[in-house]
């Protein structure tokens, strides 16, 4: 079960947030939503922390999803990062600046694939913590 798995979900489109966050919650994840990188960074300071960052690339403001991922990676070197975009091309070089584990998911994404990927990443992270 995913009841205690915390997801930080960042997307500037409120309807996408509504549909996707609801699907993740239906599957038992705890989801915090942010409409931009500033909100995401503020949420990331919360004491309980997050098991995964799931962010869109294109967002309003000075910091886009790739830059956000890079900043979050510095704050938590182990957090899995899932990055969504409708434009796969030209992202390869930029994502190379964010150390692993980083996964890219093409928009429009299937909620089935999204939920399975988020579950796999957080369970892998928790599994590696137990081993360590």
């Amino acid at each position, binding site marked *: 079960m995913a009841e205690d798995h915390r997801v930080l979900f960042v997307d500037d489109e409120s309807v996408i947030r509504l549909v996707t966050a609801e699907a993740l919650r239906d599957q038992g994840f705890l989801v915090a939503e942010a409409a931009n990188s500033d909100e995401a960074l503020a949420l990331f300071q919360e004491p309980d922390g997050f098991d995964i960052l799931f962010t869109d690339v294109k967002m309003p403001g000075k910091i886009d999803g790739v830059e956000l991922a890079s900043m979050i990676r510095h704050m938590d070197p182990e957090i899995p990062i899932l990055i969504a975009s409708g434009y*796969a091309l030209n992202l390869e070089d930029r994502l190379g600046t964010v150390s*692993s584990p980083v*996964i890219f998911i093409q928009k429009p994404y299937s909620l*089935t694939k999204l939920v399975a990927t988020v579950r796999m990443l957080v369970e892998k992270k928790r599994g590696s913590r137990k081993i360590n």
Partner: protein
Amino acid sequence: MKLIVLTSLVALAMPLAAVAQTAGSMAMPDSSTEASGSVGMAKLTVQDAHFVKMAAMAGMWEVNDGRIAANQGDSTVKNIGNTMVSDHSKVNAQLASIAKQKGIALPTQVGPRMAAESAKLKGLSGSAFDAYYLKTQLKGHEMAIALFKAEASTGSDPDLKAFATATLPTLQMHLSMIQAAMKAGQAAG
């Protein structure tokens, strides 16, 4: 650098896919075999199950609030309310028919957010009622279009995908009606 790519558009993702093949060490979940979501008795993918649940609840909410609007709105809002009742009743019946064929039990109540919006709407009158109905309809239809588009493009069940695709023009027509009414209201106000 370890980069894994998930994609439904293979052509667009080719360069990244190449990286994933050489550098990836994680086995990626396969959405075609991942079927952990369920509505009622039938086993559906997470995508399909979420779509059925949300579409059913949104459809109930549309008919309910459409009836309220047909009773309490001004002439434009009454007209929109009647259209919503008529169109969404048909859409709900189509979804119910697909669900019955597949042994899927649909939700019988709307979610708490929708219920709260309906309760608030019922308590309003005059221009405040019209403005709130149109505002919630705008958001509701934007969400519904996102939901139906997602199912049309990434759903697994062919009947649900076909239903989503066939319903989208109606939802888009509703959105245009709502936007036109809001614009006319702003111009008049």
